[in-house]
């Protein structure tokens, strides 16, 4: 009976530790991926702006409620727009952001080829 209690306690402790470790890892990753809306050059991990502090708390609270990273990102994007994420999704509103560098590179290559010919 004593052995059983020790085993159950050890199992629960390990499970809680892993759950917390995963949540903590997700939190650390997520706060670096979210832009501070007051100081856009910083992530909310770096910023001390009041809204950045509040956003960190909100993310932490949602992760602890077992909300997924994708859902939390969707929550933030719904309120702040795609620009709140350092890596916005590829969709109509962000085509220019994602494809313009390649378009410029291709254009430059074409221009060079034409010039060489």
């Amino acid at each position, binding site marked *: 009976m004593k052995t059983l209690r020790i085993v159950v306690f050890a199992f629960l402790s390990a499970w809680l530790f892993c759950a917390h470790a995963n949540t903590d890892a997700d939190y650390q990753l997520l706060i670096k991926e979210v832009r501070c*809306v*007051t100081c856009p050059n910083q992530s909310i991990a770096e910023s001390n*702006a*009041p*809204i950045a*502090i*509040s*956003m960190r*708390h*909100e993310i932490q*609270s949602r992760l602890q409620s077992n909300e997924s990273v994708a859902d939390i990102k969707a929550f933030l994007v*719904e*309120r*702040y*727009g795609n620009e709140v994420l350092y890596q916005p999704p590829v*969709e*109509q*509103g*962000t*085509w*220019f*952001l994602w*494809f*313009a560098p390649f*378009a410029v590179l291709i*254009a430059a290559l*074409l*221009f060079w080829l*034409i*010039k060489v*010919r």
Partner: protein
Amino acid sequence: MKRISSNKHAYVVVFFAAVTLLLWQTLFKNRHDYENLNIKVPNLILNDFVSEKNVELKSLQGKPYILHFWATWCGVCIKEHNDWLEFAQNADLPIVGVNFHDQPKQAKQFLQRKGNPYQYSISDAEGAFGVQLGLKGTPETFVVNANGKIIYRHTGPVSGKVLNQEILPLL
């Protein structure tokens, strides 16, 4: 030679036309427009630090109202306070002041000293309510319709002109 040159020009024109079209698509077709967002004011119960009673946000539904986020540490908020006092005297609608990331005691003293334009003075000391609405900083003003949905937002200080010519016509 002339043909290569005109082809080169054609490529450049086509390239810039394509970039302009792509830019148009992203800048104007997919704006972060509050008319297209489904943000409803959450049904929270918050503390009014002036009356020292709880305010249930759901009870405000049924007619439009203004949510104004401010703080005593926010210099711009202090500067525009008189505009809000004047607006509150003339406007026939509730203005809910949300004191953001501040100390309620300090905020209460400020309102007692300078005048209180708010029908309700709510404390959002942790900023959780602000994040729910997509707050970017203080001062920031949201106009909420009778169904509890945000229909307008103004980031930064408001002047009498903004209050009377942009916000009031929405209500």
